[in-house]
């Protein structure tokens, strides 16, 4: 295997959880299972430390590892990290020990299998963010579905079967067309290697269909309005750790897919579809906010707020400007931290009150001040309060929006206000509302719970107060992607300032031509 830095860091990050998962099957008691998984989680965090040596202005992909896989079809085992994937990998790695700690008492049945699934998930998620071969990416992308499905179906709430099947069917159905797109890219580009595919230019008709096939898979995963219907069910029924992984990592895969594939591979189609994607994003922001406002189930409220928050992310991406995209990436990270923290806390609350209804969990400020402090912190972060992490991301996206088009900016602003409305309402009732009845089980956070939440709380402040550190790492990668994109688009006569009608006049006739003949004509 060829590696850039000697020690194959990324492979180690992927393989360690797999090996540990296999080892778990031989452990019979619960306690060692939890301890081994926790140890693996901590070890993963330590293993990931070398990734912090990423040089923002160095080569596009660093920590590259390459080995032959299936030479006959041009498939290689190819991993690497750039500014885009770096933070996603770090976030994934961080979530594993937190999820183990967070479910220490929450999960009491089939403990081995639960941790087995957690480890498989971690491995597959790191693989998704690090893969530089299109097939390898798809392998990890799909492999992650199985453990997630089991997490919801086995350890979920009362309607877990319905939710898990809906989740599986939606996401897999979406990504089957992605497979067709991957095959098409190999035929046109002659390789599965993502960096090589990024170098090339493709005819518009091809881009048009490839974009649609890929965007469907990614939009379902994000999920963008109106493909979001699987999300609330999955979130509500999943166990706390499952919700955390869903919110923190899984949803990011969709937006990561847009950034990794749609922007560099189908730049002209992305430019053409950007206004529609922006419209869908804004619809998602407003819709998610409005529905969240009407929820009485705390978990459902946060789930719908995710639809809104992810709307901000996709909005940032399709603004196609450095500000917008860096805001989007930061927001991906922030949403993982904030919503991950919130879901974790709802899990802790549910362990105490056995209810997720706001009405059953009122007046907690009196009994659980530390809990409420942290809950308040994450809630303020969720509504993008200045000084917290989400503020930076959301502001960057909004600045990007106003720079691009004032109307887009104005359309997105109500989303931020809605977020404030539903989060403050939730916070107000949970903290100061009339307690339904005092419950002896309402104990404040213990040490283990503190340890679980402290890293996330620290990150809320760290990114909120010193965002420059993250942004400087991310921006060179974005600039590179956007510059390559605009150069390719210029060659097709497509510019960013072109009004929508003119864009479609240019690209429309090409796009609606027959599906089957596009490769033959453009790539004889």
């Amino acid at each position, binding site marked *: 295997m060829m590696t850039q830095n000697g020690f194959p860091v990324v492979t180690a990050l992927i393989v360690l959880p797999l090996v540990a998962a296999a080892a778990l099957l031989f452990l019979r008691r619960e306690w060692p299972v939890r301890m081994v998984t926790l140890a693996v989680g901590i070890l993963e965090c330590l293993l990931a430390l070398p990734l912090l040596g990423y040089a923002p202005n160095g080569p596009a992909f660093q920590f590259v590892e390459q080995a*032959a*896989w*299936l*030479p*006959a*079809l041009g498939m290689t085992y190819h991993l690497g990290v750039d500014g885009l994937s770096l933070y996603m990998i770090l976030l994934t790695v961080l979530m594993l020990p937190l999820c183990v700690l967070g479910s220490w008492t929450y999960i009491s049945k*089939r403990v081995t*299998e639960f941790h087995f699934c957690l480890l498989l998930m971690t491995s597959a998620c790191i693989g998704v963010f690090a893969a530089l071969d299109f*097939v390898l990416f*798809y*392998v*990890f992308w*799909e*492999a992650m*579905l*199985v453990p997630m*499905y*089991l997490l919801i*179906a*086995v350890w979920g709430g009362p309607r*877990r*079967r319905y939710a*898990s*099947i809906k989740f*599986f*069917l939606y996401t*897999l*159905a979406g990504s*089957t*067309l992605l*497979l*067709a797109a991957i*095959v*098409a890219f*190999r*035929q046109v580009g002659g390789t599965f290697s993502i960096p090589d595919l990024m170098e090339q230019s493709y005819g518009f008709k091809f881009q048009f269909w490839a974009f649609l096939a890929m965007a469907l898979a990614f939009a379902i995963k994000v999920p963008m309005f109106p493909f979001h219907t699987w999300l609330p069910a999955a979130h509500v029924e999943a166990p706390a750790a499952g919700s955390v992984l869903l919110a923190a990592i899984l949803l990011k895969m969709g937006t990561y897919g847009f950034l990794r594939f749609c922007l560099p591979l189908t730049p002209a189609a992305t430019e053409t579809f950007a206004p529609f994607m922006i419209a869908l994003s804004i619809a998602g922001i407003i819709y998610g906010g409005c529905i969240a406002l009407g929820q009485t189930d705390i978990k459902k409220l946060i789930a719908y707020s995710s639809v809104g928050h992810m709307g901000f992310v996709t909005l940032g991406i399709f603004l196609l400007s450095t500000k917008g995209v860096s805001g989007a990436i930061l927001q991906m990270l922030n949403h993982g931290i904030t919503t991950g923290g919130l879901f974790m806390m709802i899990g802790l609350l549910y362990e105490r009150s056995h209810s997720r209804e706001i009405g059953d969990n009122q007046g907690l400020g009196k009994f659980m001040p530390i809990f409420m402090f942290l809950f308040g912190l994450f809630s303020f972060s969720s509504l993008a309060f200045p000084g917290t992490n989400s503020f930076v991301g959301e502001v960057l996206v909004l600045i990007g929006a106003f720079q691009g088009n004032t109307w887009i900016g104005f359309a997105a602003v109500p989303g931020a206000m809605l977020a404030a409305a539903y989060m403050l309402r939730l916070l107000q009732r949970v903290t100061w509302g009339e307690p339904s009845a005092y419950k002896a089980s309402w104990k404040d956070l213990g040490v283990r719970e503190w340890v679980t939440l402290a890293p996330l709380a620290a990150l809320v402040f760290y990114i909120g107060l010193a965002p420059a550190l993250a942004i400087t790492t991310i921006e060179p990668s974005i600039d590179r992607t956007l510059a390559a994109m605009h150069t390719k688009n210029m060659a097709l006569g497509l510019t960013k300032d072109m009004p929508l009608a003119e864009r479609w006049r240019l690209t429309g006739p090409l796009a609606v031509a027959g*599906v*089957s003949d596009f*490769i*033959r004509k453009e790539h004889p």
Partner: protein
Amino acid sequence: MSIFALLPELWLLGLVCALFVASVSDRKQSVMSWLPLAAGLGVVAAAVSLGARGEYLYATYKLDALSQFFKLVISFGFAVVAGIASGNKDDKDLTPDYFMLLALSAWGLMLLSSCVELITLYLALELSSYSLYALIPLRGQDRRAAEAGIKYILFGAAVTALALFGLSYIMAAKHTTFIAALAASSWSFADAPLAVLGLTLFLAGFFYKLALFPFHFWCPDVYQGAKNETAAYVATIPKLGAVVVLVRLSAFIAPHLEVTTTLAILGAISMTAGNLAALVQRDLKRLLGFSSVAHAGYVMLGLAAGSAAGMSAAAFYSLAYILMNLAAFYVVCAIAKNGENPSLDDLDGLYRRAPALAMILAIAAFSLVGLPPTAGFAGKLFLLSAAWDQGYHWLVIVAVLNTAISIYYYLGMVRHAYTGESEAPALAQPRGYLIFGGVLAALVLLLGILPAPLYDLAAQAAVHLHP
């Protein structure tokens, strides 16, 4: 002529003879003690003669990369079926003559993979079929077995007649029955309408074996009626025979000829019809029956592509298919009470009653869906690539949409096994038997993670036919 070149056939023939002696001998002892091992040695024999090349019997019988590849897979499949049956020691139906018929059928399929002349091909096909006609009704006192047997024979006879009729047309039009000579002539409808019609009819015989739409109507009924072990065999190994012949025949059909277009269309209908029908099944064997109709459609992707990549993809996929299907049938046989047909509800709570079986079932099901990293995914990827390369974009889209449809019922199996609750007692399985199933599941995963060695083997076979 080196005797070692024909080692796999001879070994299996020897096995047939030994089983024959065992079935007529007075001492009624079980052959289960030595049969799995002997069948396993057959795999070794096939592996040893993997490099054998040569032509025999007036060039009607040819050893090439393709035939040796398939012989390896057939002997492996036979060994697995023998192994699956070995877990069922107290079944009174599993007599030596049962296994003799099974081995005879496998032997016929081995011969089939080496035949390069249409009449010998036909003979080998019949040899493998006749023992199946006898095998399928062999199931205790079950009336459904008799029904399945009759259906299989009647359908088979009709399709055989059709194939023979087609063969007569080919002979009349082309004046030869050697595939090599046929390959040298044109197969467009404009040049040789009679021959194309004849070929289409001749292919029908193999479509029947493959259970491709519209020759699939026997399939779910026969699976349901046959013994679980027989169903495991009928669902897998004979399909290999069909694939090898189709690969040989379509090697001389260029893409986008009338025949390949027919293959593509039949494939598309087969996938869709099979998957839609499988959605509503409760009987596991019926479900797997309809799923095999769908999988026959997927194989058509490679054959319709008509290129070297398509042939190797079809060969690889049929290997992946028998692996994952055998793993699924292994679980079916293991959970069946007294040889009854298990239904989806019988899978409830399997994770608790037999965790290893549940795991094997999950791997098999996800491989049948085509989820990575399993053999089913690798195979499907090769098929899609091959078909897309030849411009069959619509077929690829139909195939991926069908994958989406099929998720539901495959996932249903996993859902019952992992989330269903049941009061049934734990299923005790002998350790050796579980390890055997575990190896099957591990192979499914291994072939998905590292497909290169076997794909290269399949590619060699295809390049030889499609230079």
